């Protein structure tokens, strides 16, 4: 009797995707799904932009018509507008999944929890990055800040890092709080203290870009920001998210 090999045939082995490739494919699929949902619900994007704009205006009322004080605080106001806008978008991103128990459907497919996290976190990050081309010029005008074009590119990079630092823990906590009552209160309570290092790094970096950097400190603050981003993206995505969404 011929020996039966325990190994699958060559063509089956070649067609079975590796773990990394599967994760990347699933992450890309989730990302596309969320971006498509955002595109279809464009009114929500408009609402978030309006909210960010109103926030920037309110800060100027809080400080008063002192252009020097407004210019000095411009970086902080921009980061706070980003933070407040992020809580709106993060809580919405999991509201989609709660409708008709879509999240359970995804997990049963099965979609790996890590891929689900990175897909949704990337979608939220991109969404927040889309706010920058609108909110930054508004802030520059309202707070009378003048900036060179190269400085604008650096500002957008810091904005992207700040958005990434907010969305990683935000996606983790949004996944948990979306299933609770008073989720709109609980998400900020959990998220805001956690992202203070990200806020600190991004405010310092943006302030150096907007107001000048005579001591060349921009690199160290950007590095601090990037370090926290890395810690949160690894900790929240690879280690904790699967526990957060299991029933």
């Amino acid at each position, binding site marked *: 009797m011929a020996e039966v090999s325990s190994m699958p045939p060559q063509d089956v082995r070649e067609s079975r995707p590796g773990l990394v490739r599967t994760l990347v494919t699933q992450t890309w699929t989730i990302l596309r799904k969320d971006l498509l949902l955002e595109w279809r619900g464009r009114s929500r994007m408009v609402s978030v932009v309006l909210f960010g704009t109103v926030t920037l205006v309110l800060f100027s009322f809080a400080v008063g018509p002192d252009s020097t004080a407004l210019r000095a605080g411009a970086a902080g106001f921009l980061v706070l507008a980003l933070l407040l806008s992020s809580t709106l978008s993060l809580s919405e991103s999991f509201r989609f999944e709660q409708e008709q128990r879509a999240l359970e459907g995804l997990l049963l497919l099965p979609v790996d929890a890590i891929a689900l996290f990175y897909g949704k976190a990337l979608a939220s990050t991109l969404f927040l990055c889309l706010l920058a081309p609108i909110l930054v010029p508004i802030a520059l005008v309202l707070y009378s800040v003048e900036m060179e074009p190269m400085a604008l590119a650096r500002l957008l990079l810091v904005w992207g890092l700040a958005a990434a630092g907010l969305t990683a*823990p935000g996606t*983790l*906590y949004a996944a*948990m*709080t979306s299933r*609770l*009552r*008073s989720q709109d209160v*609980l998400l900020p*309570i*959990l998220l*805001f*203290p*956690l992202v*203070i*290092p990200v806020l600190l790094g991004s405010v310092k970096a943006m302030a150096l870009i907007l107001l000048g950097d005579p001591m060349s400190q921009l690199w160290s603050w950007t590095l601090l920001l990037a370090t926290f981003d890395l*810690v*949160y993206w690894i*900790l*929240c995505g690879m*280690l*904790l998210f699967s*526990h*957060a969404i*299991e029933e």
Partner: protein
Amino acid sequence: MKKFAWEHWVGILGLALLFVGSYVGLVVAPPERYMGDVQRIMYVHVPSAWTAMVCYTAAFVAAIVSLWTGRRRWDAALVGMIETGMVFNALLLCQGSLWGRATWGVWWDWDVRLTTSLVMLLLFTGVLALRSFVEDAEQRASWSAIAAIVSYVDVPLVYFCVRWWRSLHQVQSSPETVDPLMVFPLRTNAIALVLVAIWLIARRARLELRRRQHEEVGEPERREPIHD
């Protein structure tokens, strides 16, 4: 006869050591060269800080084990450790505020050590807030363990920030540069507060376990009167 729980002995020992350490610190230890008698608050302030960070570190470990094993005793321990850590964290901020008022002239400063300590308190308050909104016991245990692990990111920041950044707060001292009469009450009170913390954690963990048992068993049925 009700058994005298082991943690009561630990608590009694801790309180006794606290009395000894505080007496030496207030009466026997010399005043500090620049701050004088104001410096004596150090003998509770520094041990409170150490104890808070020890409690949070223990909570971090308990959270990992709770997630790994799913056993309710680790969730109960987690609650005790977080709450006790928060008590010492709040004490540390109050003591620091009093000391700061006397030496820096302000109740509060946005110095990195003070700011990260306040953030630490807010982070773990958030973990307890999360617990209060989750009704399912297993989900509550799992999610609060996750939140505790993420919140722990701030604790090393609190400890090392005075070395990484310029700070109004002093850097950690070494016993070799401190008068032995100051080292003794500091170490004694540190051990004392850790023992008191163990006592509080154990009591709180027992209470949490009992609450969870009641939750799982449910309320006892009411006996309705029998109507003919």
